[in-house]
């Protein structure tokens, strides 16, 4: 344990030194981080690499998403059974969306008009009209719906259900399930490659990422992770993000405290980056240069330089950081 924390410390020290050595080239974007236990949103200036403000919000905030114009932040406040709307200018809560019980994750339709959210307690995906603040429909899915993804053309919505162990593919026009694909235990995140040719689903307890053919509806490959010195039970894939060119994937590995960097073409793991404890969700800065990771147990956010694949900074945030999204 001592050895481990010493290593973590030196990694942090190195990261800090590196950060100091680097010229201040990052553009000023705003990162929003939901703190699950802190009941707050930490707001980070990506140029200063520092928290500029902490906004108290509803109970157990997890999934967050920005409106298309960036003027509003939608926050799943699970224990309040609502989605709160935060005005990103005034940082005031200006309203709620009818989310259904215990909303956990959400995703905005490409035109920005609809929000899709997963209701963990009711085995439903709820479709919400953002402008009218009304529920459009509810789609029954498997037990404990969690991850949400949209195909790049917006035609297929994907929901993962943690206890059913499936990725449910939903036609966004008919709002009917078109395929149910079994993956490994406790699927958490789903993400399409930028060209839409593959759907990746992480299985937290199974310890794998399933690569799904979204046309034939089959798992065509499974990605396994092996980290020397770590038991396989500690490797728990959660958040997935692809670089804009679709060449690299970043997968958060939970209590393995690492982010895997994967070559999308070969599915080979290029590197494991040591970040904070229980790394959870990921978001790129809009210029694609940096990747932010929420680290639930160490109460911080790690910043990864995408070009050099180095962790350049840890930023302390609120208690149990969970979701992250970054505005222009």
């Amino acid at each position, binding site marked *: 344990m001592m050895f481990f924390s010493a290593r973590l410390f030196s990694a942090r020290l190195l990261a800090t030194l590196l950060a100091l050595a680097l010229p201040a080239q990052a553009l000023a974007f705003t990162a929003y981080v939901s703190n699950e236990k802190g009941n707050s949103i930490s707001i980070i200036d990506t140029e200063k690499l520092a928290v500029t403000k902490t906004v108290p919000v509803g109970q157990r905030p997890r999934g967050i998403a920005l409106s298309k114009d960036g003027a509003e932040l939608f926050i799943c406040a699970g224990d309040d059974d609502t989605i709160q709307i935060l005005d990103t200018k005034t940082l005031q809560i200006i309203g709620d969306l009818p989310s259904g019980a215990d909303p956990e994750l959400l995703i905005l339709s490409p035109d920005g008009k609809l929000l899709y959210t997963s209701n963990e307690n009711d085995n439903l995906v709820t479709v919400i009209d953002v402008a009218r603040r009304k529920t459009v429909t509810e789609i029954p899915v498997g*037990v404990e719906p969690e991850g949400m993804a949209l195909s790049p053309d917006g035609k297929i919505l994907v929901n993962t259900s*943690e206890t059913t162990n499936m990725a449910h593919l939903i036609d966004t026009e008919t709002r009917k399930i078109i395929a149910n694909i079994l993956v490994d*235990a*406790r699927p958490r995140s789903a993400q399409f490659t930028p060209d839409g040719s593959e759907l990746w689903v992480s299985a937290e*307890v199974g310890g794998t990422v399933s690569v799904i053919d979204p046309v034939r509806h089959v798992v065509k490959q499974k990605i396994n992770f092996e980290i020397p010195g770590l*038991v396989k039970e500690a490797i728990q894939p959660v958040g997935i993000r692809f670089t804009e060119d679709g060449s690299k994937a970043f997968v958060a590995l939970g209590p393995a405290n690492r982010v895997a960097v994967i070559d999308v073409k070969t599915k080979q793991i290029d590197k494991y980056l040591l970040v904070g404890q229980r790394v959870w969700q990921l978001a790129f800065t809009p210029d694609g240069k940096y990747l932010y990771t929420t680290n639930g147990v160490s109460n911080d956010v790690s910043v990864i330089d995408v070009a050099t694949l180095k962790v350049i900074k840890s930023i302390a945030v609120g208690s149990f950081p969970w979701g992250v999204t970054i505005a222009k």
Partner: protein
Amino acid sequence: MRLKSFSANAAMICKGAILAIIALALMIPAASADPLPIKAGFIRLPHSRETISILDIPAEDDGIAGARLATEDNNTTGRFLDQTYTIEDRRLKEGEDPLTALNGFANEGISFILADLPAPDLLKLADAARDKNILLFNTSAPEDSLREEDCRANVFHIAPSTSMLTDGLAQYLVWKQWKRWFLIQGSHPQDKLLGDADRRSAKKFGARIVGERIYEDTGGGRRSDSGSVQTQRLIPVATQNAPDYDVLIAADASEVFGGYLPYRTWDARPVAGSAGLKPISWDGSHEQWGAIQLQNRFVKLAHRRMNDRDNQAWVAMRMIGEAASRTNSNDPKVIRAYLAGPDFSIAAFKGERQTLRSWNLQLRQPILLGDGRMIVSVSPQEGFLHQTSVLDTLGFDKPETKCKLQ
């Protein structure tokens, strides 16, 4: 109309094709109208209502409620796979032969049986079920003997063994540097098994038993209007003149005295084991790793909190669902092969995948340490290492097993 312009031959081919299409069309609805049934039964002998705390008196649906919830969960998944799950409840009376229940289920075509039974009854069922293509899931009996010298190839153990529980506790106490144990053991045979497991765990992880006492069960009930007055005087005397110790370990499998120990010992020392800090597979207060979702679903269904037996039944039924959904089969042989094989793992809200020990069909699992209000810690503790799975630091390991599955 269009057929008329075709030659007779072509028309005949067309007819054939149409017939084939009709046949296909008939087949498809027939298949979807008959989903694959996965039938389970639950045989239980209700646990004693003689508990020290009234909070622990088992509910009418103790155990079975967990299986019912998992049946609902399995059916939600089953909707997408054309599978239906059912669970039937059979409650035995004291002294009733469990074989009657087994045979009844067998006649109904029920091939997956969850057993919440004492060890001798479970063994009796296992031996009777051997030629019946039936699988048994032990959801409550903790005896190590069931996983060792008396193991059976048709019994999966979902409940952790006594040694897994005492090892889970020992790891934490050693991590805490509370290594000097004062052991008070009850006078029943089950208490001796528990005390033996405590002694073995102490030796395994480097704790020392500095003193031992037997607490005689002199009979009588647990309820009285002035109970606390007597126990307040009784327990200090029963624990005085002990050698220097860090923690008092209670081995009380029958709820005779354990619950009376905390806060009443002669020396100001914490209590663990059967009271105080208890090693358990599950507790109504456990909420980490998404467990809150399962807890919420359970409260909604049963209107009470989920205990360890409820949870073990939930896991058993989910294992059946997991195997049936992966293999698309309700054949016990196929299900057994999947569960005992390398591909099986189950997510059961304790932070990591749970798998089966292939040598005795025991479910590997973390052990929670709780005081009845909160989860204090979860074992295995950091630093206890193992070459294959750290979960195998809990309980008898493969090299020492006496089990020969048959």
